[in-house]
C-alpha cells in the first residue's frame, strides 16, 4: 500500500516518531512517500490570524500530493489532521474560494481538487490493514514486561473532534482496538480525549498543568503502565509535563513505538531512548 506522507513541522523533533514510523511501515509493507517540499499546515495559528491564508497553506499540501498521483495524505499529528481536514471540507464546498487559491498555486504548477483526502496513520493501521496482519507479524508470546502492562490509549483532541465520523467524539475506541490487536491489554480510563493544553502549555504552563495532572491521575487509577499517544504535542505535554509531577511517572509512547515493540523491533530502532520518561524493559 502506498501513501503520501505529511510529517508536519513537529515530527522531526519528537521522541522517536520518525524512527518508529519508518521501522513499522517497513515491517508492515506500507510505502510512505513524503510529500515533496511540504509546507507548514498552519495549525491553529493561521485560523486565528487569517482564514484565507490558513486555507491556502492546506491547499498547497493537497495539491503537492495530487501532483504525485496520490489519493491519501497520511499524517501522524492530530493538529495536522484536523487542520488539513478543515481545509479539505471548507475548500471542496466553496468552489469560488478554491478557484482563487488555485490561481495562486498555478505559479508552482499546482492545483487542489477533491481527489486527495487526509487520514491519520492510526486509522490505516487499525481500519485499513487486515486485522490478521498483527497476529501474523507480532511476536508471540509478548515479552513479559510488555504483555503484563496495561496500556492507556490517549487520543487527545483533534482526531475525533470535531468530525465525529472517524470514531465517537466521546469515548472513542480505535486506540483500544489497536492495542488489543497488537496483543496488549488496553486500560479502561476516562482521560482519553481530555485536552493536554496543546500549544498553550508553552506560555500558560501554570494553567495547563492541572490538565496533564488530571490525565495522568485517570490513567494511574486504571493501573496502566504505559500511555500510547498519536500526536507529537500530546506526547510532549504528557511526557515532559510529568517530570514536575510526583512519581511514579508513566512512559508515554507513540502508537508506532508500541506497534514496533509488538512486532519485536529493537528499542533503538524505535527511538525509545528519546523519551524523557524512560521505558523500563525489565519491570
Amino acid at each position, binding site marked *: 500500500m502506498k501513501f503520501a506522507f505529511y510529517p508536519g*513541522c*513537529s515530527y*522531526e*523533533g*519528537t*521522541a522517536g516518531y520518525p524512527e518508529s514510523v519508518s521501522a513499522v511501515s517497513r515491517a508492515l509493507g506500507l510505502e510512505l512517500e513524503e510529500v515533496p*517540499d*511540504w*509546507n*507548514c499546515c*498552519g*495549525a*491553529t*495559528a*493561521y*485560523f*486565528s*490570524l*487569517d*482564514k*484565507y*491564508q490558513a486555507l*491556502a*497553506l492546506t491547499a*498547497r499540501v493537497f495539491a503537492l500530493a495530487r501532483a504525485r498521483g496520490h489519493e491519501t495524505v497520511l499524517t501522524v499529528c492530530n493538529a495536522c489532521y*484536523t487542520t488539513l481536514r478543515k481545509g479539505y471540507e471548507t475548500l471542496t464546498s466553496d468552489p469560488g474560494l478554491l478557484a*482563487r*487559491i488555485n*490561481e*495562486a*498555486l498555478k*505559479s*508552482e504548477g499546482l492545483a487542489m481538487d477533491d481527489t486527495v483526502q487526509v487520514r491519520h496513520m492510526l486509522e490505516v493501521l487499525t481500519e485499513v490493514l487486515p486485522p490478521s496482519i498483527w497476529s501474523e507479524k507480532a511476536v508471540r508470546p509478548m515479552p513479559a514486561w510488555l504483555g503484563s502492562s496495561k496500556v492507556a490509549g490517549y487520543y487527545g*483532541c*483533534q482526531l475525533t*473532534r*470535531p468530525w*465525529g465520523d472517524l470514531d465517537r*467524539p*466521546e469515548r472513542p475506541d480505535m486506540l483500544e482496538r489497536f492495542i488489543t490487536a497488537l496483543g496488549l491489554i488496553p486500560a479502561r480510563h476516562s482521560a482519553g*480525549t*481530555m*485536552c493536554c*493544553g*496543546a*500549544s*498553550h502549555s*508553552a*506560555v*500558560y*504552563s501554570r*494553567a*495547563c498543568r492541572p*490538565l496533564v495532572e488530571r490525565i495522568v491521575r485517570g490513567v494511574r487509577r486504571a493501573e496502566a503502565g504505559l500511555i500510547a499517544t498519536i500526536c507529537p504535542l500530546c506526547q510532549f505535554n504528557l511526557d*515532559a509535563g510529568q*517530570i514536575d509531577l510526583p512519581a511514579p511517572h508513566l512512559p508515554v509512547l507513540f502508537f508506532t513505538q508500541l506497534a514496533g515493540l509488538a512486532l519485536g523491533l529493537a528499542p533503538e530502532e524505535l527511538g525509545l*531512548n*528519546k*523519551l*524523557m520518561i524512560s521505558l523500563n524493559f525489565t519491570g
Partner: protein
Amino acid sequence: MDDQELEHIFYEKENGHQILKCIQCGTCSGSCPLTGEMDHAPRELFALIRDGGIREALGSTTPWYCVSCYQCMVRCPQQIPVADLMYALKRLALSAGLACSGHKMPDMYKAFDQVTRRFGRITEPVVMARYGLGHPGDVLANLPTAIRMLGRGRIGLLPQRTREPKKIRALLASRNQEE
C-alpha cells in the same frame, strides 16, 4: 469600525448568527479545559454579544484561551460551532485592532506566522526564540525542558525549511489580490 460594522461582520460574514440559537445551557463552559482562565466563559461571551457587547467581547481573553479542543462544539445541543466562532472573534479582534493587549497568544501566533513566512515550515525552538524577544520570562521557564530535549538529540539547531520559502510568502500574499 463602529459597533454596527463589527456586528455585521461577525453575524453575517463569520457565521456568528449561529449564536442566536444559543439556549445558555453552559455545556460549552462546562466542557472547556481553560474556562477558569477566561474573563467570560463561552456561554457568557455569547450572551454579551447578543446584548450588544461586541466591542467588549472582541477585547475579551476568552477566544485567546481557546485551545481548539472542540469539546464545546461536539457537545453543543444547538450545534453551534463554538470553537470556529472563537477563531472568527480572534481574526476580527486583530483586524479591528481590538484584541486584548494582556494575552500572550496573539504574540505567539504572530511569531508562528513570521517563522512560516521566512522558512515555509516552523521549528518550535525558532518560534519560541522569536516569541521570546517580547517574553523573555517564558523562554527562561522553558529552558530546563529545552536542555533535556537537547540531551536526547531532539532539538535541531537549524530551522526546517521548504525549498523556496518565497513561494510560501507569495501564496500567503495572494489573499490581497482582487477579493
